[in-house]
């Protein structure tokens, strides 16, 4: 028996759930939105400053689109099973709860990253910036790092309060990522947003040009340290979520 089969089975099942016409249309609209914003800005401004376009890309893709995508794919990991009365059938398998968590994580990251990468392609075309190939590589990496870190972050509220997971995840995103993440203190070392900003600044070569007050909001460690920090954060959060989920008990009225 192999637990890996279970994770892949859940991931494949969750991706099939996402491949309904309605979900695909929603994803296409989500992917088109950043390009529409970029086009609108370009039309209004007449000329698009490259650095401004990069900041806008950053706000729209690894931040907004990835967060929204993960909210709808990762947050319902337990709530969906409870609602569809399939929780107990998954939970009675030897590694069912871990497979559910990790398989859903895999599906959420794959789905959201794919949508965001499509959006990246469209938005770069809409922006019409020189050197788009390098920007595409930078943002593809940022999207992947964002998806891995944020999906793991949302796993925690999803298993702790499954029936209010989306509300709790939005609160976590606001408080942890966008409040604590912008505090120039030790606490922001534990946020994905600090690592993403630092990667953006490093890969765009903006370190020296940053004003002092903005320099406080980024970490000067090398890119691999930032990536490993996100991987470590994601691992810790997934393990914590898995341990909590493995111990969760839903009384018959909730779990049936």
């Amino acid at each position: 028996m192999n637990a890996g089969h279970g994770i892949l089975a859940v991931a494949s099942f969750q991706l099939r759930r996402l491949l309904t016409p309605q979900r695909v249309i929603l994803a296409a609209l989500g992917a088109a939105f950043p390009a529409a914003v970029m086009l609108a800005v370009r039309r209004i401004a007449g000329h698009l400053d490259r650095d401004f376009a990069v900041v806008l890309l950053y706000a729209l893709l690894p931040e907004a689109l990835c967060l929204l995508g993960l909210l709808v794919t990762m947050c319902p990991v337990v709530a969906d099973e409870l609602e569809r009365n399939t929780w107990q059938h998954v939970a009675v398998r030897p590694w069912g709860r871990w497979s559910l968590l990790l398989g859903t994580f895999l599906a959420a990251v794959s789905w959201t990253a794919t949508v965001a990468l499509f959006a990246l392609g469209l938005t770069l075309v809409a922006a019409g910036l020189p050197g788009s190939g390098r920007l595409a590589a930078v943002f593809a990496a940022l999207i992947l790092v964002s998806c891995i870190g944020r999906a793991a972050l949302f796993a925690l509220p999803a298993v702790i309060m499954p029936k209010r997971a989306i509300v709790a995840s939005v609160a976590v995103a606001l408080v942890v990522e966008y409040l604590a993440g912008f505090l120039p203190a030790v606490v922001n070392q534990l946020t994905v947003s600090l690592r993403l900003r630092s990667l953006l600044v490093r890969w765009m070569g903006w370190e020296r040009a940053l004003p002092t007050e903005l320099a406080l909001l980024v970490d000067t460690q090398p890119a691999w340290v930032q990536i490993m920090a996100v991987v470590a954060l994601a691992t810790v959060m997934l393990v914590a979520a898995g341990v909590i989920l493995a111990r969760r008990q839903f009384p018959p009225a909730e779990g049936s």
Partner: protein
Amino acid sequence: MIEAAGLSKHFRAADGTVVKAVDGVSFVVAPGEMVGLLGANGVGKTTTMRLLATLLKPTAGTARIAGCDVLADPLGVRRRLGYLSATTGVPDRLTPQEVLESFGRLHGLEPAALTDRVPALLDALGLTSCAARPCGRLSTGQRQRVSLGRALIHDPPALVLDEPTSGLDIVGARDLLDLLERLRGEGRSILISTHRLHEIERRCDRFLIIHAGRIVAAGSRAEMAAAPGGLEGAFFAAVEPGAEL
């Protein structure tokens, strides 16, 4: 073998009071035996079954499934137990074949093992003709068979079935119970809960009557049949002492 020893589960209600959903339940279901767990709604049947299935942890006591303790070896229990809940919860968009394959993989079975196991199970459940039809387009009885197939995919020696005939018509219920008798004939231990006494009074080898979280009566089919009013009389005598049928 399914064994429960002093199994208890207490929940804390919203007002802080302790609710004894299951209170010191003990019984044994031997291999090749089908035992009916009878009780009204809300008396502890589902909680007992969920304790056996490791979905809940006992407050006190323990249980063993095919020799594995629910507290000490929950993974061993899950490998040896087939569990069917009162609600089917079969994914509408998947076909019976896909459901069985998915749950087989979720159980950690190798793809090669599933290649043989899934068609054989579909055949045994009478689902071959609709194996490629999405579950959302199946009848309630067929969906319940898919759900049973999901519980049997790993060929477990013990089955815990929580109201498996719930929602089925008389023909569907008969067919499902026929199938369970065949599974019993293969030497599996089967614990089946229901409050529809007439369906299982001639099917089970023994009966346990649960009320307010406790086993209030137990006996073989012959003993229950010999009681005034048969199984139904024994049931009411146990849950409403002094009441006449």
